């Protein structure tokens, strides 16, 4: 994160040059301390000082004042407090006093009896450059030139939410208007340059800059600190092996979901606990949505156009959650995918969304693994194998059964793979009176291709329920999960 700064600009960029040499005072009428020092300002002006007023060019009365209601000089001088007395020599500031401090003002001005009737000291007030009412304008003035996206005027009679919907920029839910100040605040969430290309976005293969992603993150309702996660997720979704175009164009209803790994999850508040796959947490609700809006708005992937889903599913608005790495007894999923422990990352995977699996009875890992395997077999169709990938989200109470029996992640996944090696006679077309199935299978077939089943630990502390998130065709003919380290997280 870099701080949003409105003062890191130069006088040259604002077109207002404070005097190169001499005393400068910046005041505002709406400040008791400035009113207190008003009597001494005339004396300073007589000695060549320049006085800027931030709010009322007629203040103080009877003194020659420069109008700084546009705050250009205040920005150029980096004023935080009023009154501020500065001494400048050769275009550089050599001394500064903030608020009223008689001894310092006398020393700075060289006027031995300055302010004899005033108290010794009185603290100043906040500069108008920090007034929230003008902060947006200041921000746009300082950094607006970094924004290159087309500016669209929403006309006076247009309801803001309706106007954004009418332009086709939303997923059907209201969006936050991506005004320049909001986008600039969003961009403060990353150190990456706004014009840097993050990825080439399917289906139209349009380069998405950091700025475009930030605009869509604003639309989605993200906070600036989510932006590095969104950027990594967009990059992952646009990777060749993820095949976002195919995922969009298939009539199957799966969509990209975002799993967040590492310390960033806790820091920005991605929920990995109770209701991790549900509503109610801003990061979860908006990060996945931002990714989907990038595909829609930048990539042009819209339902009814390239998106041909027969049914779709509510997770297509956006699905994002984190693995509960802190409570999990197992090595994080990300470590198995090559991310160093303690490093933040995202994994994107194609999913239809969750289906719960109940097992409140099993106390042995063998029994519970069988339960979960039966549920996983249903992904796509119980008689199709291999084919679709899947994500299994193990709840804390379920993973504890394995951990207490000494099963680690590797042993668990090996056990599942064995249980999901399905006999050909059960898979064959026509078997069980079901025409769907594998054509003439001769040997046992694995339900999932190698690495086709992801397992993450998440969820609330109570409930012997896990969830299966069925995916889409795994591998080169479909989509492979993609993991990307989050820069600067």
């Amino acid at each position, binding site marked *: 994160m870099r701080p949003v700064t409105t003062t890191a600009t130069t006088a040259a960029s604002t077109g207002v040059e404070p005097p190169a040499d001499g005393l400068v005072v910046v005041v505002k009428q709406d400040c008791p301390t400035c009113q207190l020092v008003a009597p001494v300002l005339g004396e300073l002006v007589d000695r060549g000082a320049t006085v800027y007023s931030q709010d009322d060019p007629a203040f103080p009365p009877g003194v020659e004042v420069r109008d700084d209601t546009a705050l250009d000089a205040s920005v150029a001088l980096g004023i935080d407090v009023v009154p501020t007395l500065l001494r400048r020599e050769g275009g550089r500031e050599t001394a500064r006093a903030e608020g009223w401090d008689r001894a310092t003002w006398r020393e700075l001005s060289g006027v031995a009896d300055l302010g004899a009737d005033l108290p010794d000291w009185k603290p100043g007030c906040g500069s108008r450059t920090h007034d929230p009412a003008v902060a947006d304008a200041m921000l746009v003035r300082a950094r607006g030139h970094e924004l290159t996206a087309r500016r669209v*005027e*929403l*006309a*006076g*009679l*247009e309801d803001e939410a309706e*106007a954004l919907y*009418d332009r086709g920029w939303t997923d059907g839910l209201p969006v936050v208007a991506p005004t320049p100040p909001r986008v600039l605040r969003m961009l403060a969430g990353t150190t990456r340059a706004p014009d840097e290309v993050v990825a080439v976005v399917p289906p139209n293969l349009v380069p998405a800059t950091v700025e475009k992603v930030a605009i869509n993150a604003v639309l989605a309702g993200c906070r600036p600190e989510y932006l590095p996660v969104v950027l990594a997720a967009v990059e992952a979704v646009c990777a060749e092996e993820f095949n976002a175009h195919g995922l969009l164009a298939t009539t199957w209803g799966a969509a990209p979901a975002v799993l967040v790994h590492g310390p960033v999850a806790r820091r920005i508040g991605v929920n990995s606990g109770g209701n991790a796959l549900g509503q109610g947490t801003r990061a979860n609700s908006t990060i996945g949505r931002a990714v989907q809006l990038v595909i829609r708005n930048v990539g042009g992937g819209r339902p009814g156009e390239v998106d041909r889903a027969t049914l779709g599913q509510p997770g297509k608005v956006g699905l994002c959650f984190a693995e509960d790495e802190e409570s999990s007894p197992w090595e994080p999923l990300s470590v198995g995918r090559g991310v160093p422990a303690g490093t933040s990352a995202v994994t994107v995977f194609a999913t239809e969304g969750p289906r719960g699996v109940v097992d409140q009875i099993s106390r042995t890992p063998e029994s519970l693994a069988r339960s979960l395997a039966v549920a996983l077999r249903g992904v796509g169709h119980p008689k199709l194998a291999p084919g679709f990938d899947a994500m299994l989200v193990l709840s804390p109470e379920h993973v504890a059964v394995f951990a207490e029996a000494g099963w680690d992640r590797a042993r668990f996944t090996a056990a599942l793979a064995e249980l999901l090696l399905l006999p050909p006679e059960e898979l064959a077309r026509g078997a069980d009176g079901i025409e769907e199935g594998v054509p003439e299978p001769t040997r046992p077939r694995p339900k999932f291709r190698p690495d086709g089943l992801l397992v993450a630990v998440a969820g609330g502390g109570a409930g012997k329920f896990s969830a299966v998130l069925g995916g889409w065709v795994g591998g080169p003919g479909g989509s492979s999960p993609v993991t990307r380290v989050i820069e600067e997280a």
Partner: protein
Amino acid sequence: MHDLAALEADGVTATFVASSEFVTATDAQARALGFASVPAVYVAHPIQDRTDPEMAALADEALPRVLAAVTGASPAG
């Protein structure tokens, strides 16, 4: 103008007929609703004191432009 915007948003081809007094107001409102231009048809002002035959003649005269506003037809034809 709001009706036109609403109907067009619903996928219905829409126009409206107004007296020439409304040209400026309509343009302003169209811009205020985000349209660069709208297919409105204007007829000679005033309206409310006209006789029935005069109103019918006005409709006859406006027809080519009404058709042009809602179809690909040229207003001259």
